[in-house]
Each structure stands twice: as C-alpha cells, then as structure tokens.
C-alpha cells in the first residue's frame, strides 16, 4: 500500500482542485473540465502505450483524434438519401478502384523481382489510378455537394446510436495506424516523429476539404447524444421534483410564490446542464476505468514484460527471438485505436464536428506534454498528467488574469502595459505548459508518478 501513497495523494489534490473550481467558478465549469480531463486521460493512455510501453514516438495524435471524430459523423448522422441517389454510385465505384489499385500494386510487388521496371510500373499504376479516381469521383462529388448545401451536402452517416461510433472510431484509427505503421515504423525515432506529424496533417487536410464526406470546414452540428437533452429535462416532472427535493431548504426561505417559482426555474436550468454533464462523466469514467484495468493487466503480463524488453534493448530482445517489427506494429495500432476512441468521445461530448479546429498544438503536443509530465510507462501517471495539464491549460488564463490584475493594480486602468497584458492573458497557458514541461524534463524526467517495475 505504501507504494500507492503518492498516487493517492496526487489524485486527491487533483480532485480537490476541481472541487475548488466548482465552488469558486461554477459546478458546470468544473464538470466540463472534469469531462475533458477524462477524455485527455484516454488520449494519454493511448500515447503512453506507444511511448511508455514501447518507446515509439507518435506525433500524429491529432490525425487519429480527427478520425475518431469523423467516425461519430459517419455512424450517428442520418443518411442523406438524396445525396446517395445522385452521387453514391460514383463514391462506391471509387472505393472499388482504390481496392483494385492496392491489389494490383501488391500483385506487382510480390510477383516481380526488385528492378527499375517494377518501380516504374507501380508508379504508373498509382498515377493512372489517381487520374481514374478523379474522373470517376468529380461528377458524383459535385452532385452530392449541391444537395441542399446549407444543411447537408454530404453523404451522411449510418444513423446508428452514437455509442457505436466510439468502437468504430477506434477501429478506423487502428486501421489507419496499420497502414502508417507499415510505412513508417522502420524509421529512426525522430524521423518517425516528423513523419507521423506530417501524415496527421495530411489526414486532417483531407477531412477538412472533402466536403462530401463530412461537410469539411462547414462543420456538422447537432450530433446525437448518449445523454438526455437539457430542454427535455427541464420539462419533465421527475427532474423538477428532484431539484425541488435537493434545494428544499433554500426554497423554503423564499416567501412569495412567484419568486419561489422563478428561483426554482433557474435552479432547474442550472441543474439540467449539470445533470447532462454528469451523465457524460459517468460514461467517460467507465471507459477510463475499463481501459485502466486492461492496460494495467497488460503491462504486468508476459506481453508487457516483452514490450519493455524490446523498448529497453531491441537487439537483446530480437536475439531472444521476439519479433520486434510485429510487436511495434501491434502496439502502434492499439495505442492509435485508443486515441481514436478518445477523439470520438470528444466529438460526442461537444455535439459538433469541426475539422477546422484540429491543430497540432492542441491535439498532439499538449497530449505529449501530458504523457511526459504525468509519468511515462505508468498508466496512473499518464492519466494524472492528462488531468493536471488539461486543468492548467484551461485555468491558466483566469489565473494569469488574476495575477496580472494583482501586480498591476497600482497602475491606472488605461495604462498601455496593463491593457496589453490583460489582452494577452489567454496566451499565458502556452507559457505555463512550456515551462512546466521544461522543468519536469530537467528535474524529474521520469514524470510525477514514475514507472514502477514489479519484480515477480
């Protein structure tokens, strides 16, 4: 139990901080932060599997997050029948062409020996395929995008419940990771980082600009939710009764009936948003706990030992007969799938899909800071990192604003320096995160909660 003391202490401090936000700002904000902390925790578990278990640098987290988000649109949105009628055939034909190109290239690569002719023929097959794709797709895409462009203009999804999209998002991200892993995993560490960073950028630019797929930068709003809507709650009998019961002491203090009704209405509105967020918190917490149990079991299983052996000394592990290429690919897929799951959770939580908002700063580098700060190779650490860094990321601006006001209070309101500093308060979050990362890297490189090897 002594070993877990610092873990418990760190988590208690974190929960205490979130409760402080609840008391000083509002419970709704506290729960929003908590939900995002949980989503970040899922992302860090994914990144930690790759970096902490296997030592793979994946700077493409943004790409998998975006794919997870795309999965929510593809699964939960109702299909746009008209778009399918006008352009569905072209898109299906394109999918077949892609499959055909892959098979032809594979056939050429397997069948013939390495030669210049083979390279040229592969290149020409791919080039010809791309031209064929464009010719086939162009009329279909044009037709689809002109179907009621203000509202739809895309193919829509499958119309399934939104929770399926979490699984689909993980599968999609895992599938992509398989392809990327096949291409890039042979590279040395920092090349892998750059390659994955750039590939993620390609994925996001495709999602952004292929409007027939998910409306691109026009965004998809009003996605389904696995939780009730605030409006429905505010009109339902049982919820109002519940709120009255909880606040009966406060309500009893108010004498006039109209005031009482007004106060109750306000409470119901507040409580409904808290209730919805609590529903999300429950769902996310379930996911985090399941992932934590599974990853923890995996880490201390023979498989986990094998991964650590490969991470610490590739040559020795290889000499012991471990297939390094295969294991790296597997762990790359697993980690990316978890990140995809987190991406789907995030879009579900927001209720909208905005491809324009996927930027490497927020979705790759901040997640990496979380893993490094929390503790590489330790799942409890990674989750804690998700909490701490997200908390700082959100709360840095208000804290900075408070400090600026404190230190410049002797200056007049219109002082140029003061006004400038107050305007730039939101950017202090970069400073806090950056300095935090540098300090942790320097003085506690193993993270807040370091990796623990249990000797069996």
């Amino acid at each position: 139990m002594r070993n877990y003391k610092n873990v418990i202490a760190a988590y208690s401090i974190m929960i205490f901080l979130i409760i402080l936000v609840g008391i000083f700002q509002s419970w709704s904000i506290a729960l929003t932060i908590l939900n995002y902390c949980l989503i970040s925790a899922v992302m860090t578990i994914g990144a930690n599997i790759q970096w902490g278990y296997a030592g793979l640098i994946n700077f493409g987290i943004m790409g998998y997050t975006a794919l997870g988000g795309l999965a929510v649109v593809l699964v939960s949105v109702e299909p746009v029948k008209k778009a399918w009628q006008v352009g569905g055939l072209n898109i299906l034909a394109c999918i077949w062409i892609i499959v055909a190109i892959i098979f032809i290239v594979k056939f050429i690569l397997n069948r013939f020996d390495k030669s210049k002719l083979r390279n040229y023929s592969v290149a020409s097959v791919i080039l010809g395929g791309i031209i064929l794709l464009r010719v086939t797709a162009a009329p279909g895409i044009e037709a689809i995008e002109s179907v009621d462009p203000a509202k739809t203009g895309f193919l829509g999804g499958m119309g399934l419940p939104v929770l399926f999209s979490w699984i689909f998002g993980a599968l999609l991200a895992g599938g992509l990771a398989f392809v990327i892993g096949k291409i890039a995993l042979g590279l040395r560490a920092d090349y892998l980082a750059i390659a994955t960073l750039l590939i993620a950028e390609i994925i996001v630019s495709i999602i952004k600009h292929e409007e027939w797929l998910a409306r691109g930068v026009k965004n998809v709003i009003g996605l389904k939710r696995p939780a009730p809507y605030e409006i429905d709650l505010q009109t339902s009998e049982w919820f109002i009764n519940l709120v009255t019961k909880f606040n009966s002491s406060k309500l009893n203090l108010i004498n006039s009936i109209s005031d009482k009704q007004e106060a109750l209405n306000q409470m119901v509105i507040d409580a409904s948003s808290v209730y919805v967020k609590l529903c999300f918190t429950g769902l996310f917490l379930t996911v985090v706990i399941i992932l934590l149990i599974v990853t923890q079991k995996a880490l201390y299983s023979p498989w986990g030992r094998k991964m650590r052996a490969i991470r610490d000394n590739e040559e020795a592990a290889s000499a012991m007969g471990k297939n390094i290429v295969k294991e790296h690919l597997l762990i790359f897929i697993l980690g990316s799938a978890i990140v995809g799951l987190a991406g789907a959770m995030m879009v579900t939580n927001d209720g909208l899909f905005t491809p324009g908002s996927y930027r490497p700063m927020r979705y790759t580098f901040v997640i990496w800071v979380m893993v490094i700060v929390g503790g590489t190779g330790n799942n409890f650490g990674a989750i804690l990192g998700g909490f701490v860094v997200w908390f700082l990321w959100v709360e840095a601006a208000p804290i900075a604003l408070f400090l600026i006001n404190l230190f410049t209070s002797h200056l007049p309101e219109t002082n140029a320096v003061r006004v400038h500093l107050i305007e730039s308060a939101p950017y202090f979050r970069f400073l806090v995160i950056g300095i935090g990362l540098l300090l942790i890297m320097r003085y506690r490189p193993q993270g807040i909660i370091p990796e623990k090897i249990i000797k069996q």
Partner: protein
Amino acid sequence: MDFLNAIIVLFNFTVIPALAYGSQLALGAIFVTLIYAVLRFANFATGDMMSFGTMFAVILTYYFQSLGFGLGVLPTALLTIPFAILMMILYMLIIDKFVFSYYRIKKSPPVQFAMVSVGVMFVTQALIRIIIGPSDRRFLDGEKFIIKATEFKEMTGLAEGITLKSTQAITIIVTLIIVSIMFWFLNRTKTGTSMRAYSDNEDLALLSGIDPKRVVLITWVIAGILATIGGVLYGLDKSYRPFVYFNNMLPIFAAAIVGGIGNPFGAFLGGYVIAFAEIFVTYAYKRFISYLLPEHLEPDSLLQLLSTDYKFAVSFSILVIVLLIRPSGIFKGKVI
C-alpha cells in the same frame, strides 16, 4: 507567339512564386539541418524561432517608420534585419544555456532533445503572442512591383504579362547571397571545417583540439542569421502571423529531410523541390494548355491535379515517398 504566351503564363504563375517560396523554405531547411548536424536533434521550435526573429523586425520596422527612417524604394524591414538577428541570437543563446546545454553535456538521446525542443516551442510561442499578439501583420513598404503585368504587355506586345514583386526579387537575391556566404564559410574557413569535423565525429574533433563550446556558439549564430532572414523574407512576401509560422515548420522539415537531413546543400535544394512540387501539382493548367492546343480542343476543366487546399499535403506526401524509397534523402545526409 502562342507558345511564348504559354511559357510566360507558366513562368509567371509557377516558376517565380515557387522560386521565392523555395528560397524561404531553403533558409529554414538549412537552419533545421545545421542544428541537426551539429547539435544532433530535430528542432521542433524551428517555426517559432523564425517567428521570434521576425517579430523583432516587425516591431523595429514600425518604430523606424514612426521615426521616418527608411530605405526609399526598398522595404524598411531590410534595415531592421541586423538588429533582429542580434536579438534572435541572444534569445537562442539564452535558451541554449538554460535548456539545451544540460542535455548536451549529459549526452541525452535525440528523442529527449526533441521533447525539450517542444517545450521551447511552447515558451517561444507564448512569448511571441504576449509581446506582439496573434493577429496578421503587414510590414512591407517601399516599391511593391519591379515589373507590372500591364507594363510588360505594353513592352513586348504579348497577351500575357509577367509580374515581378519586389519582395520576390529581394527574397531570391538575399537567399543566394546568404547561402553562398554560408557555404563558403562552411567549406573554406577553418571554423567551418571544425564545425563539419564536430558534426562528423564529436570525439575525434575533441581530440584534435576543437573547442565544442565555440562550435555550438557559432552554430547558434548562423542559425539565428538564417532563421531571422528566412522569417523576415517570408513575412515581407506574404504577411507576418505567428500561427502560419508555426505551420511552416512542417514543409521546412519536409525540405530538410527530402534533401538529406544534416546536409546543408541538400536542404537548400530540398526547399526548392518542395516549393516547386507544391506549386506545380496544385496549379490549374487550363490557361497554359489553351495556348498550346488548337481552339476546338480546348479543355473544359481547370486541369488541376489537386486543389490548392492540398498544398501542404503534396509536400508531405513527397516526404513520405522519399522516406520510403531513400530514407537518407536525395543527397545522402547523415546515416539514419
């Protein structure tokens, strides 16, 4: 005559912009490659360091303008570059002293260096946004064009014109001067040779009496010069916006790797390879083809291989292909 028109269309819309953009990328790529070769890490703060240097140039340009200084037809920013470079080098040396030197002495693995540079990236970005703010700024003054399309048409009597912006000409000329001086320095002077020796084999260089501190110092000085000039030229040509500079890091990395990371000449050419590929693949060839083909064969579509939205994607795809086929880059860089 039609043939000449076609060539001019191509020249005006692809070659000139690609040369200018390529020069800007090339300066950044040499910066990346130099840090990689001598200090041995991939610097993820590249874009933001360029942005940091440019920020001083922008602020000083505004200051000089308010004082009434200027270079007449040339942009005032050229006057501010030396001061901006000094500030940039100072910042880099401070960062090196407090952040990178610790890991260099400890001989940390490159991955740790890369993560540290991510931390530097965050801090630099915060400083830039706190000092100058995230908004778009233009700081070009002086004469905008050297040749205008209408003048060119009058002069030659052709249907198509060539526009040469002064910023494009300045970019290309300054890049050529800087890069030639740098290659002369690296290949011909004693200090340059000692830098290359240090990059090739650190221990051997130490044995032959090369002072590592001096090598590191000179590397940062050259890096500061390249980063600031590259950033200012890009800002003059387009505009100064911190977020765009951060994003520029990606094609710059692509250029450095395509050319063979650790090889300055490769990085120089890599910049142009990336720029030309981006522009040639996303250019709509309709007007070019319509001059060459007889009238009844004129194409209906734009004849664009990829829409301009995929500009970045093109360079990244080239990078992925190069990594797959020839991981050491087109011009053999450091062994991977």
